[in-house]
């Protein structure tokens, strides 16, 4: 009673806790958690994420679910429609399309994801260095990227195929020769923006080296757009692989990617449409899922962009 008459007497710990008991605190939310919360509210993006997880899961276990291998032929069962024996039907050599489709998923996803990851590494490095250094060096670097971009990539693909032989690695290499440019451009423009921020100037003023600023401040803060670009590069790499295979420049028989399967199925479209239907559906579904997820991530990382 005596003490409490003082208006400004310090509170004991118990009194403090009691006083704040009914106060609502916003929980501390990190950048990544915040993005995840927003992503979870985005139904199309969740659909994309779920579909992708399913597709990857099926790519891993799919080939084991059927009793057939992707290369064994059943010449008496050519062009069989989907049935209980062959769930997706068979092709012109009587090979099981279900098994081939999931093998194709492995190839397509592997090519798409690994090509995009290589693009990521080269693109981030090139773009970040150009953006950080600036001036004449930047101008020459970006001009170099422009010229590289103008070379028809089919020419590069065929050159590579003749030199190192056709195969999955050739396709990945061919996709990455020009594929990193887009990432480099985006990273550069991000770095240019972030470079102007006060905390970067402060870091420089405190004597941080360029390398440190790049690794500690610039790249982590450009991570959102980098991840979004990565998510949107994967479907275009998958498309490019499918397109090359569709032209007959892709992986060689008996391995199949979705693109080669679509190419094989095309002449049979009128009578055996399932041969084109399944690979075509999976290509489209995968690209759709990555695009939906990428759009969702963009909105999640940068809500200002959400219109």
């Amino acid at each position, binding site marked *: 009673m005596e003490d409490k008459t003082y208006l400004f007497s310090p509170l004991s710990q118990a009194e403090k806790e009691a006083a704040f008991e009914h106060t609502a605190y916003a929980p501390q939310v990190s950048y990544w958690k915040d993005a995840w919360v927003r992503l979870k509210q985005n139904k199309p993006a969740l659909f994309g994420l779920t579909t992708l997880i399913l597709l990857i899961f099926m790519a891993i276990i799919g080939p084991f679910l059927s009793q057939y291998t992707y290369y064994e032929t059943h010449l008496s069962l050519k062009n069989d429609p989907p049935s209980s024996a062959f769930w997706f039907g068979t092709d012109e050599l009587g090979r099981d399309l279900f098994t081939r489709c999931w093998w194709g998923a492995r190839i397509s996803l592997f090519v798409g994801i690994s090509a995009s990851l290589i693009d990521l590494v080269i693109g981030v490095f090139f773009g970040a260095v150009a953006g950080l250094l600036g001036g004449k060096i930047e101008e020459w670097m970006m001009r170099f990227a422009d010229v590289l971009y103008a070379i028809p990539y*089919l020419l590069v693909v065929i050159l590579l195929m003749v030199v190192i032989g056709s195969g999955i690695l050739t396709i990945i290499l061919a996709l990455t020769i020009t594929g990193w440019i887009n990432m480099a451009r985006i990273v550069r423009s991000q770095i240019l923006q972030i470079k102007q921020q006060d905390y970067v100037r402060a870091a420089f003023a405190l004597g941080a080296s360029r390398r440190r600023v790049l690794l500690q401040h610039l790249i982590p803060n450009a991570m959102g757009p980098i991840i979004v670009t990565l998510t949107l590069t994967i479907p275009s790499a998958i498309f490019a692989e499918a397109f090359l295979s569709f032209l007959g420049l892709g992986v060689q028989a008996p391995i199949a990617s979705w693109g080669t399967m679509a190419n094989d199925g095309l002449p049979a479209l009128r009578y055996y449409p399932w041969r084109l239907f399944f690979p075509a559906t999976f290509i489209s579904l995968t690209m759709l899922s990555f695009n939906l997820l990428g759009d969702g991530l963009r909105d999640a990382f940068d809500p200002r962009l959400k219109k």
Partner: protein
Amino acid sequence: MTQYLAKKAAILIGSLFLVTTLTFFLMHSIPGDPFVQDKAIPEEILKALHKHYGLDQPLYIQYGKYLDGVLHFELGPSFKYEGRTVNEIIADGFPVSFYLGMEALIIAVFGGIVLGSIAALNHMRWQDHMTMIIAVIGISVPSFILATFLQYLLAMKLDLLPVARWGTFSQTIMPAISLAALPMAFIARLTRANMVEVMQQDYIQTAKSKGLNSFQIVVRHAIRNALMPVVTYLGPLTAAVMTGSFAIEKIFGIPGLGQWFVTSITNRDYTVIMGTTIFYSAILMLCVFIVDLLYCLIDPRIQLKQEIDGR
């Protein structure tokens, strides 16, 4: 402005020269000989062929001769198809691809802007969601898959349109739609994003408070600013659709230019590879230049901005 455009033109011509040079040396570094195919050719005949086409000379002389030809718009004879010149091949294929490309371009631009505007004006309502779902599907489905799907459904099952070949207008419909789908979806998204932003500007509020209806606001005030990014995209897009697509031409049996880009490379038909590549690059650069020109006319601010950006 003249100075700005002159600078742009100089950069374009420089880039064209670089592309020509790079392609020339890349192409000649491909192992293999354009005249050695399945059958073995006697040594003397091969030598005579090489002499006839100038392949026996040192590379730098071939390069010099080629550059000289390009300057006179003379792209040389095809190695693979005797008696045909690259100029003839382009003259045969380009009008077909151009016609188809223009049809696709009209569908893409018109459809894209209308869809994008509808989405933006009904922002976050069901029309918006519907349009954006269509757009993301359009971006995700590869053109060769859409083409085969249309061919199967409209031509083979419903018998509404001819399956393939070239000549009548009805034969152009499916290829044009297949070509247009992706750019249309892309333009719809671009238009929507920019239109939404523009519609929040003060001058649109002013127009609203003056009592204009939303159609007038869009046509008279919003569209000009909202379409700037679309105009940028139009340059590369026009070049790409005008020069044909190998997959679409293969599926619909169209005698366009697109097939030559692929077959010439697999045939090692050096002059056709060079010719089509240079032709495509020239068209691309011309389109980009025209877009720059349009930009200056539509929005005088851009010149200053680009100079500041140093691009």
